[in-house]
């Protein structure tokens, strides 16, 4: 791969993730975060909140499975036992209440898990995910029309979906992936490293947690799977659909929150390919072609030696002279000055 290509990709894609996580320019109105027990979405959600705080975005947290509000959230809407319509009302009310205090034109709506809503018995057959989500983005109220809203929805991939009412209905997940402008799939960095290590040896990559299908195992993640503190972090597999329809696929890594101060304004997410653990720095023999491997023998030829070697007439040339059977094929050698002729060993 050409180095220019890499750096181009680096700048472009880092700019993209920074734009997406900081909700700049309404790059993505609906981000779908697909998490699992092996890598929960909590670190990413906290990162969203941290960045929104830095840029003074109004944050609404719709809690389907969280009891206590997270730190830094402006409005906390408990969605327990509420119908979709009530949730929409409460969320829209949360902004009109809070908007008087701040001048922020932008708002971020976080949904901690959409699964309970999709799974609930109380949602009737007419419930539609797309209209539910779009009602957050495009509120009907006249006052809220100028607000730029971004929606981040978390979906637990490993929670099984209820059977579909009709065989022709798309599953909620495929519906969501169809609607979303950005899909972020989360992986644990240590698992990615373990799987890469296996693939590099052409082994079957290991699976963790529920995928192990062991009796009694729900979670496989352990703190220090390879005894390595630096293997912490969340790997984001990003799929972003541009307005033109072109998709961008990239893998990033989000370092743990303890690595940087909460007010840190620079970009902390890096490409997965740039991480030293994922792609270790190349061996020196790739970069520097001049150096020969060190050896106790001198393997190179001087110019004179090369000339002498070219001057050697190999035995089969002599054999082609056609002097008759049994003749030819002799080794013709002119003694040089450095040759030490030994009567007993050498014979011509």
């Amino acid at each position, binding site marked *: 791969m050409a180095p220019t290509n890499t750096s181009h990709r680096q700048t472009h894609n880092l700019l993209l993730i920074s734009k997406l996580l900081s909700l700049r320019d309404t790059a993505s109105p609906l981000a779908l975060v697909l998490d699992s027990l092996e890598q929960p979405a909590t670190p990413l959600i906290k990162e969203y909140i941290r960045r929104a705080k830095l840029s003074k975005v109004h944050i609404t947290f719709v809690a389907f499975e969280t009891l*206590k509000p997270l730190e830094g959230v402006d409005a906390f809407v408990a969605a327990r*036992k509420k119908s979709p319509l009530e949730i929409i009302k409460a969320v829209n009310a949360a902004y009109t209440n809070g908007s008087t205090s701040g001048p922020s034109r932008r708002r971020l709506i976080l949904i901690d898990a959409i*699964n309970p*809503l999709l799974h609930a018995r109380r949602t009737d057959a007419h419930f539609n995910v797309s209209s539910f989500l779009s009602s957050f983005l495009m509120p009907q109220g006249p006052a809220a029309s100028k607000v730029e809203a971004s929606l981040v929805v978390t979906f637990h991939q490993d*929670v099984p979906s209820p*059977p579909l009412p009709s065989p022709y209905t798309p599953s909620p997940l495929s519906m969501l992936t169809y609607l979303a402008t950005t899909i972020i799939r989360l992986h644990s960095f240590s698992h990615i490293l373990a799987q890469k290590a296996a693939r590099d040896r052409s082994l079957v990559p290991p699976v963790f947690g529920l995928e192990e299908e062991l009796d009694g*195992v729900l979670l496989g993640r*352990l703190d220090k799977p390879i005894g390595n503190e630096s293997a912490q972090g969340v790997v984001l597999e990003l799929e972003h659909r541009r307005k033109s329809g072109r998709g961008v696929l990239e893998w990033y890594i989000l370092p743990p929150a303890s690595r940087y101060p909460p007010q840190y304004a620079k970009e902390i997410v890096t490409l997965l390919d740039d991480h030293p653990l994922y792609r270790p720095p190349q061996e020196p023999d790739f970069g520097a072609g001049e150096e020969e491997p060190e050896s106790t023998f001198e393997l190179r030829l001087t110019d004179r030696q090369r000339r002498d070697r070219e001057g050697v007439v190999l035995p089969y040339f002599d054999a082609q002279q056609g002097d008759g059977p049994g003749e030819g094929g002799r080794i013709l050698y002119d003694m040089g000055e450095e040759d030490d002729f030994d009567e007993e060993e050498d014979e011509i």
Partner: protein
Amino acid sequence: MPTQPPLPPLLAPYVSSLPPSSLIVLSTVLGAQGNWLTLRYLYAALNASSTSDAALILGERHNGKKQKVVLVSFLRGWEFWRAEAKRLGLDLARLTDKRQFAFVDGLSELFSGPRTTPTTTTTTTTQTTPPSLVPSPRGGPVPQRTILPSRSAPGPIPARGPQPARGPAAVAAPAPLTPSAPSAPPASSREIGPVKRLHLSGKGPAALDRLEKDIAAVVAHLSGRATATAEGEDDSEVLLVLDQPDLLLAATGPGQGIGATEMTEWVMGLQQYVHATVMTLAADLPLIHNASAAAHQMPTPLETEHAAFAIGSAHRAHLVMQLRDLDTGAARDVSGVLRVSKGGAWGQSDNTDANGSWEEKEALYFVQRDGGVSVFGRGE
């Protein structure tokens, strides 16, 4: 083997000083049951507060707060827990008297109430019968489905067993245990302690709401908020232990309007009343994996709902304690494997100092014949 300490040292950081409004999911399989671990949670909470001074040194992380426990059991009755706790040195009956512990029986009369309208029978029966009477003459047309021992006489210590003092008909009433209860004799028996029996009536989320209200009443009674007693009991922390609430899900199911979401919301509702919650769930292979996409056949509703409930709960949990069989088969000196993992809600609250002692771990455990448990690392 020597007698084990009631709380194995390796286990101690995980069972004591639980962070506020946390959920701990304890997943078990058929071959590795979690009763011993549930009891360790009871012990860690109750023992630290019952013995006064000696435990204060050990349990000073509780900030001097009293720990109280409400045990809601759906698969096992009072007698089982009392006997098992006794082996640990916990006298649950006495603790019930001291209002440090309350047992909520979700097993005996969950589906078979003694009367059709429990509220009216509460008033009538409690007024007509003295509280010291044994429950057997009051069986009536419906046979008593209790696993309680039939005590023939109140005996010298009538206060020890809470059930004989209170008739099942009286306790099964969903009326909350507030002082607004009707008559005087139950008030005296109420001092013995609430052994509440849950009764599921109705359909769907409304039935769950009723159960929630019942349990909330017990919690309120225990924490002293309903009865305004003195001696500053308001600063007590209540630990709620839900033993296998998946029975509810399995017994009702989506056909009756109770699915995984409703169960999760029910647990969430209960969590609001208490300091911390411990919930045991079955995580056997067919219950979890048949519903996954990799399975080849159509999963049953039970499999789907149970998997959604269990996995969703693990997503909501701070800590998931997973018990399972030994991977290499049964052994004489190992009962199973305990894996402690951080759940999906780990790190949501920022008080990391409280969670500092929690790190993920996998250890083996062995339950001895006398009920003692040793927890040890592999190869130790």
